[in-house]
């Protein structure tokens, strides 16, 4: 080997070794901060002897910083500086939140954080198995001591809080969009221009809907999708159709966490439910005749939004069609005031009472929850912030911006007083931008506050969503609080059963929609019932019946 070659090789080797060492070090430093919060956590109580536990800590009196993680594949906590409210809170309340990203793979991220004992301070996630698992392992902070000191949550949620309590009787979860009032957006959105061009036919019963879709198909052919059910594999618009076939049928019956129909005192199989079968036959007929988009099960949100934006959908139904339809409506009327979208009263089967048809549901507990982990240095301060955030000041900040511009002070009912400078467009932008940091929305406060402004405007000037929420969707959502907490632990025997039943259901659901005729729908559901029973569906239903009755008791007894 020549000398020059040897020198080159030496340099290359040295670089390689260095790279290895560096790589080793960098991962080391990443892991380092993790143990510090937990070691601090054990020290804090003794660190603050001048602060007795009974003292109320006022949010904003001292700097507060914590880390936050959202347990969803489609969500990451935004950079705290990136929002108006975040900047305002940083400057005025000395609050800084460090986002922790799930990187699109929350299961793996959470597992890693648990196993490496580096949990974030606050986690935003669904109620149920994950929360329960963390609680059982003693990773969560109970809120019971804080509830009276920081009273917003208790005031606004009332006795429904009891439904959030874990099996040990303590409260570990701070709910999001909890409410005592009906809310929700599920329903049918109609393309105005197409509806007008077809002579504004009656659209009330399932037969009307079918005839209307046929007419759309005949007139517009392939250029317009007659019925778009949003993401059909999550039920969505197809689940909304299910509710048309029986009074008081609930969208929740189809949900993975329930997947059962109440009959008398028992929860019974969905596969044998005559309403479900009737609905599936109707849906299969629509699909077969190409009245439902053939991409229903494979399409993505982007494809749906694009189509709606271009006005190429005649009827759009889903569990939450409001945002997409509102955006599309606003864009479309700019070009053509006669176009756009409107919502209709839910479709019902001929002979049923249309006031007893509920395409969507809400629960008193709202959507998801915030939990504070034992890794948090100052759980009480974090709770104080969450409580402030869910109170009138926090909610008004998120929905109407910092106090002083669009609103100032509160009226006698506790609603914000809107100033003359109120800028509807700015408010709309703020709400859109703040959506990812609305972690503990207070529906009972914010809905009337929003309506207070809207109700003063003439109908056509009202915010599209607000108008149809107050006129149609809120009165037509049913309360499904009794169906919460029906999910067995995933790694238990029943959890395994649930997983199998879910697999069988998702497959049979899609298959039955794509069935060739009514007989095939029947046979697919018969087979699904047989497979599900073999997998243990019966035991799952029995267990769910017991839990369901417990819920009813808690709700009734308060």
């Amino acid at each position, binding site marked *: 080997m020549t000398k020059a070659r*040897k020198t080159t*090789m*030496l340099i*290359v*080797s*040295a670089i*390689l*070794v260095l*790279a*290895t060492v560096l*790589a*080793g070090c960098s991962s080391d430093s990443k892991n380092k901060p993790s143990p510090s919060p937990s070691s601090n956590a054990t020290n804090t109580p003794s660190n603050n002897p001048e602060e007795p536990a009974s003292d109320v800590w006022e949010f904003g009196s001292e700097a507060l910083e914590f880390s936050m993680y959202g347990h969803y594949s489609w969500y990451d906590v935004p950079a705290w500086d990136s929002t108006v409210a975040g900047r305002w809170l940083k400057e005025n309340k000395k609050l800084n939140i460090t986002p922790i990203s799930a990187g699109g793979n929350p*299961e*793996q991220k959470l*597992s890693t954080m*648990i*196993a*490496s*004992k580096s949990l974030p301070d606050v986690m935003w996630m669904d109620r149920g*198995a994950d929360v329960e*698992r963390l609680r059982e*392992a003693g*990773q969560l902070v109970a809120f019971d001591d804080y509830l009276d000191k920081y009273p917003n949550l208790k005031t606004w949620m009332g006795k429904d809080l009891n439904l959030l309590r874990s099996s040990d009787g303590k409260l570990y979860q701070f709910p999001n969009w909890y409410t005592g009032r009906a809310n929700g957006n599920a329903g049918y959105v109609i393309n105005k221009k197409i509806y007008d061009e077809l002579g504004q036919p009656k659209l009330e019963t399932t037969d009307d809907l079918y005839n209307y879709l046929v007419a759309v198909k005949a007139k517009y052919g*392939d250029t317009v*999708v007659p019925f778009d059910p949003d993401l059909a*594999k999550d039920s969505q618009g197809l689940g909304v159709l299910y509710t048309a076939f029986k009074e008081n049928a609930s969208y929740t019956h189809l949900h993975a966490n329930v997947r059962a129909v109440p009959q008398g005192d028992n929860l019974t199989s969905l596969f044998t439910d005559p309403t479900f079968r009737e609905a599936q036959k109707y849906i299969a007929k629509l699909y077969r005749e*190409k009245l439902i*988009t*053939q*991409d229903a*099960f*494979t*399409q*993505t949100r982007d*494809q749906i939004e694009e*189509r709606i934006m271009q006005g190429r959908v005649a009827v759009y139904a889903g569990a939450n069609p409001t945002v997409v339809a509102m955006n599309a409506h606003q864009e479309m009327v700019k070009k053509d005031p006669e176009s756009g979208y409107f919502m209709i009263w839910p479709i019902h089967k001929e002979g049923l009472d249309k006031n007893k048809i509920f395409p969507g549901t809400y629960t008193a507990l709202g959507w998801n929850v915030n939990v504070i982990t034992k890794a948090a240095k100052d759980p009480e301060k974090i709770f104080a912030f969450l409580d402030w955030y869910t109170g009138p000041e926090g909610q008004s900040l998120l929905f109407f911006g910092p106090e002083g511009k669009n609103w100032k002070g509160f009226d006698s009912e506790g609603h914000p007083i809107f100033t003359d400078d109120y800028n509807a467009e700015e408010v709309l932008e703020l709400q859109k931008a703040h959506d990812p940091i609305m972690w503990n929305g207070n529906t009972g406060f914010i809905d009337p506050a929003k309506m207070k402004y809207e109700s003063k405007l003439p109908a056509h000037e009202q915010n599209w969503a607000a108008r149809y929420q107050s006129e149609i969707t809120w009165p037509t959502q049913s309360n499904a609080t009794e169906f919460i907490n029906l999910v067995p632990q*995933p*790694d238990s025997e029943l*959890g*395994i059963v649930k*997983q*199998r039943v879910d*697999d069988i259901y*998702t*497959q049979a*659901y*899609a*298959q039955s929609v*794509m069935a060739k005729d009514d007989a095939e729908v029947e046979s697919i559901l018969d087979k699904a019932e047989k*497979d599900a029973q*073999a*997998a243990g569906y019966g035991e799952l239903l029995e267990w769910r019946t017991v839990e369901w009755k417990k819920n009813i008791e808690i709700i009734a007894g308060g």
Partner: protein
Amino acid sequence: MAQATTEQRTRLEQQPKPKKNIFVRFLKQWDIQLMVWPGILLIFVFAYLPMYGILTSFMDYNIFTGGNIWANPWVGFKHFQMFFDSPEFYNVMRNTIVISLLKFVIGFPAPIILALMLNEIRHMMFKRIVQTVTYLPHFMSWVIVAGLVMSMLSTENGSVNMLLKSVNMIDEPINFLSMKEYFWSILISANVWKEIGFGSIVYLAAISGVDPHLYEAADIDGASKFKQIYLITIPTIMPVVIIFMILSIGNLLNAGFEDILLLANNPVLRPVSDVIDTYVYRVGLSNFRYSYATAVGLFKAVISIGLLTMANYIARRSGNSLW
């Protein structure tokens, strides 16, 4: 490994030179050793050390015990038993084997054929462009590729359906991504499209090592282009082909994960799309059944090692084995 060391030893014993102290030999080639050790270290730390986690497949693993896996109870072969008894077992195994065989049979020769074809192109500019265009998809993530495939095959304004319609081959758009019959073809085509160019790079390199004199001699002897490919190019690059074939046989049970997860959106496809990896993800990880997931993964690994050993055994007879 054991085999390798014995082979080395026998080779050393055959050498007439007196055995030198291993330390002296190491010092003499320290600069070369320095290049190997970082790699060995990385493999040891990231591939061998974590292997103790396999033990959790024989336990009921609770994730809150973290790294201290000894705190979990032993349950023997419970999780393996559960997998073999589960109703999905037959379907999952069939799909895994069929999809991976298809990927092997079609996806393995495809880059070789492309390389042979590219080699015959005399127009340099054109060759470069084709090469770049074909290997670029390799750098796209499956999310993007799946998105492309899905919008191309969509029934509403999907380009494939529009094309078929405009040439009057169909009257109604075909719902490609919701029909079981088409899934395997779509999956394999997307895979070949994505990886063909990148895979061909190594074969092109091997082909460029072929001695040009051989072609000249063949030309003089009047061999046609096809004959030259068949009798010169292919035999010369055979060792490379065999090594890569062994490696891909080791990967045979990796029927794919992201591609299937993203393309098989419609639950109707599950009977043809559910493979070991998607099953582990859905049943194991999403439901915290880590021990079960590990057991299924271990089962897969054992079969893969068996296949690799077998392939290597066969290859050794041709003199081109890995070890």
